[in-house]
C-alpha cells in the first residue's frame, strides 16, 4: 500500500503539482529563508518536504524559574542537555494539543505537568525564527492521589488537554487525568502596582505612625509573568478511567468519557454532571465492549460520537433523549473474514475518533488502520488507510511485548485534506486524501538539526531490502509516536516521541 515516493529534497512550488493548486489562500507566511510564499492548506502535504522547526524537551526541574526568560528558554529548547537515556518516566509526553489559533501548543506528561509553548512572533530582526515554539508556561496540573475507599492509586498522568476558544486576554484549557478534570486559566501579568501606602517595596507592613504623606499606587511594567490558576475542578464523577474530554461548540458545556459512561458538564458547575451515555450492563459478566473515545461535533452542539472497543462508532443526538444510550447512527464495517485471527478483536478496537473540521467526516484509528467515515454512510468507511500493515503477521509478538495495546491518535490538517497518525520506530505517517499519496517520516534525534529536511522513510516488508529501507525486524517498538497535533490553519505539526516534542513545518521555497 505504501507508494514508493521519489527521494525528496527541496521542492520548489513550480515543480510540485500540489502546490500549484491552492484552493484557498490563507495569506503569505515566511518560509525559513525569509522570502514570503503563499501557502494554502488545501495543497496538502503528502509529498511536501517537512523540516524540523525545533525539538523541545519537556522541562522538568530546570526551568520553573527561568520559564519567563527568553534566553533561558531558548537555551533549554535548543539544547540537547538531557540525553534521552536520562529521561524519567514522568517526562513522557501523554498528550499534545494546539489551541484554536495555533499560537499555543500544550503538552501533558505522565508526571501530571502541563507545558504550554508559544509561537515566536514574527519580527523584522529574526524573520526566520518565526515558527519556533518556546516555553510559555509550565504548571503541575494533577498530583498523584490515593483513593482510600478502593485502595487504588490514581495516576497523575494527563490523559487529554483541550483548549477553550479564547474569549478574553486569558487562555483557558481543560486537562484531565484518570479521574478528575480541571479548568486552568493561563494569564499574563506584565504590570505590577507600586507605591502602596501601607506596605513598603518588599511588601512588609509599614507602621502607620511613620506615614506622613499619601500617594496613589501606580502600575509599572514588570517582566512578563505567566501564571496558571485552576479555576474549576470537576471531580468524583467517574468510576472508571477517563479517556476523553471534548468541549462543546456552545462553549458552555463539555463532556468527559470513561470506559462505560459519558458525562456532560457545565463549565460553571463543578458539583454536578449529567450522565448522557451509560453502557454498563446490569451484570458485569455480560460486558463486551467499552467506550474508547468520544468527541462533540464541531458545529452542532447536540451531536457527539463515541467509539468502542469493538470497532464501532455511535453518533448520538442529545435532543432525542436525556440518556443517549440509543444511538442515532451506528457506524460499523463488517469484518473481513480473511483477516480474522487470534487478535482480531483487539486490533479492531478504536483508539481515537476525530471529527473533521467541516463536521462531515469522522476519522477513526484502530491498531493497524485509519478509516475515514462519512456521517451519511454507516455501513462502511469511505476511506481506509493502512498505517503499518506489515505488523499484521507479528501480532503475536506485539501481544507479548504489550505493544498491541498501544493507543495511537490521529489528526486532521486544517483543511481536512491530509490525515496523520503515528507508528513505531518514531515513525509517523501522513495520508493525503485527495492524491492518495502517503509518506512516512521519522522524528528522531539524528534528524534533529534545525531546518533539516525530513527524509521519507520506508519499511521493507520482505525480500530484498533496499539501501534506505528499514526491515520490520529492526523496528524499535519502544519508540512509538502515539500523540501528534496539527496546527489548525498552517502546515505545522507537533509530534511527541516519548519525552521529546518535535515541531515540523512544511517547507515551501
Amino acid at each position: 500500500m505504501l507508494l514508493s515516493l521519489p527521494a525528496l529534497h527541496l521542492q520548489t512550488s513550480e515543480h510540485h503539482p500540489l502546490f500549484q493548486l491552492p484552493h484557498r489562500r490563507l495569506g503569505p507566511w515566511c518560509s525559513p529563508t525569509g522570502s514570503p510564499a503563499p501557502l494554502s492548506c488545501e495543497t496538502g502535504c503528502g509529498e511536501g518536504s517537512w523540516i524540523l522547526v525545533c525539538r523541545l524537551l519537556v522541562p522538568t526541574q530546570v526551568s520553573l524559574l527561568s520559564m519567563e526568560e527568553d534566553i533561558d528558554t531558548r537555551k533549554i529548547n535548543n539544547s540537547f542537555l538531557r540525553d534521552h537515556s536520562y529521561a524519567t518516566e514522568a517526562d513522557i509526553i501523554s498528550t499534545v494539543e494546539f489551541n484554536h489559533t495555533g499560537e499555543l501548543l500544550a503538552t501533558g506528561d505522565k508526571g501530571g505537568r502541563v507545558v504550554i509553548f508559544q509561537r515566536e512572533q514574527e519580527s523584522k530582526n529574526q524573520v526566520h525564527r518565526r515558527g519556533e515554539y518556546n516555553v510559555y508556561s509550565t504548571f503541575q496540573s494533577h498530583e498523584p492521589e490515593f483513593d482510600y475507599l478502593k485502595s487504588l492509586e490514581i495516576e497523575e498522568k494527563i490523559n487529554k488537554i483541550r483548549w477553550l476558544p479564547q474569549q478574553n486576554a486569558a487562555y483557558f484549557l481543560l486537562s484531565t487525568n484518570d479521574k478528575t478534570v480541571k479548568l486552568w486559566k493561563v494569564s499574563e501579568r506584565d504590570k505590577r502596582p507600586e507605591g502602596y501606602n501601607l506596605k513598603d517595596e518588599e511588601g512588609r507592613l509599614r507602621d502607620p505612625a511613620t506615614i506622613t504623606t499619601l500617594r496613589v499606587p501606580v502600575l509599572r511594567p514588570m517582566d512578563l509573568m505567566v501564571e496558571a490558576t485552576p479555576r474549576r475542578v470537576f471531580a468524583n464523577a467517574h468510576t472508571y478511567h477517563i479517556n476523553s474530554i471534548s468541549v462543546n461548540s456552545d462553549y458552555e458545556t463539555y463532556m468527559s468519557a470513561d470506559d462505560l459512561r459519558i458525562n456532560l458538564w457545565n463549565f460553571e458547575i463543578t458539583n454536578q454532571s449529567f450522565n448522557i451515555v451509560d453502557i454498563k450492563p446490569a451484570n458485569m459478566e455480560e460486558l463486551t465492549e467499552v467506550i474508547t473515545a468520544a468527541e462533540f461535533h464541531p458545529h452542532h452542539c447536540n451531536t457527539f460520537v463515541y467509539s468502542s472497543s469493538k470497532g464501532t462508532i455511535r453518533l448520538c443526538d442529545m435532543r432525542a433523549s436525556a440518556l443517549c444510550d440509543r444511538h442515532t447512527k451506528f457506524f460499523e464495517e463488517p469484518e473481513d473474514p480473511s483477516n480474522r485471527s487470534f487478535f482480531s478483536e483487539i486490533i479492531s478496537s478504536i483508539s481515537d475518533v476525530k471529527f473533521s473540521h467541516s463536521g462531515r467526516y469522522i476519522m477513526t484509528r484502530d491498531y493497524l488502520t485509519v478509516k475515514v467515515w462519512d456521517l451519511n454512510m454507516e455501513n462502511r468507511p469511505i476511506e481506509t488507510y493502512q498505517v503499518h500493515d506489515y505488523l499484521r503477521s507479528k501480532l503475536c509478538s506485539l501481544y507479548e511485548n504489550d505493544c498491541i495495546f498501544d493507543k495511537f491518535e490521529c489528526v486532521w490538517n486544517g483543511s481536512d485534506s491530509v490525515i496523520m497518525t503515528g507508528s513505531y520506530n518514531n515513525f509517523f505517517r501522513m495520508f493525503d486524501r485527495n492524491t492518495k499519496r502517503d509518506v512516512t517520516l521519522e522524528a528522531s534525534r539524528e534528524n534533529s538539526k534545525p531546518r533539516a529536511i525530513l527524509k521519507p522513510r520506508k519499511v521493507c516488508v520482505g525480500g530484498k531490502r533496499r539501501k534506505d529501507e528499514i526491515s520490520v525486524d529492526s523496528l524499535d517498538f519502544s519508540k512509538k509516536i502515539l500523540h501528534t497535533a496539527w496546527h489548525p490553519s498552517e502546515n505545522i505539526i507537533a509530534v511527541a516521541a516519548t519525552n521529546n516534542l518535535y515541531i515540523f513545518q512544511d517547507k515551501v521555497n
Partner: protein
Amino acid sequence: MEVQKEAQRIMTLSVWKMYHSRMQRGGLRLHRSLQLSLVMRSARELYLSAKVEAHEPEVSLQPARSPDPRLHPPREAEAEAEAAPLDGEQPSPEPMDTQEAPRAEEAPARGAPRPAKVSRKRRSSSLSDGGDVGLVPSKKARLEEEEEKEGASSEVPDRLQPSPAQAEGAFPNLARVLQRRFSGLLNCNPAAPPTAPPACEAKPACRPADSMLNVLVRTVVAF
C-alpha cells in the same frame, strides 16, 4: 499440535499479564482486562477445538467443554479471594463489581452476593479442603464441578493430589502442562501446601492444583 502449543502459550501469557496488571499504578484498566480476557477466550477455544480434532471425539467431550465457561466464573471469583489477601488489598465493591467484566464468556448469572461471599467462604473452604482447594468458589459451582468431574475432563487440574478420577477425559495433559508452566512462571514451589492465610505473592502458585485459568481469574477478579 502446534496450534495447541501456541494457544497454550498465549493463555499462559494472558494470565501472566492479567496478574501483573493488578500491580500497576492506577489500578486495573477495564479495557485492558477486557481485551486480555478476549484473547484468553480465543486461545482457549482454539486450544479446545484443536484438542477435539486431535483426539477421538468422546461423549465426555461435550459435557467437558460446556462446563468450562461455568468453571471459569467460579475460578475467577476464587481468584479474587486469593488475590485479595495476596497484596493486602480489600476487594472493594467496585473492583468486585468489575471483576465480572473481563470474563466475557457467557457465564451463568452470578449474583452480587457471590463475590462478597467469595472472599470469605473460599478462603475457609480452601483451607479446609485439601484436594478441592481453589476449585470451588461457591456451592453452586461446586455442584457443577462435581458433576463434571465424573464426566472427566476438567480443564482445571486439581492437582494437589493428582487423582485419576480427575485426570480422565480429554484434557489431562493440558491441565498438567498449564500447571507446570504456570507454576514455573510464578517461581514458586508447587508442592507447598497452602495452610496459613495467604499473605505472600506466591499464593496462587502455592496451589499447584490450580490451573492457569484459576489464577487468571483470581487476578482478573481482583479488580
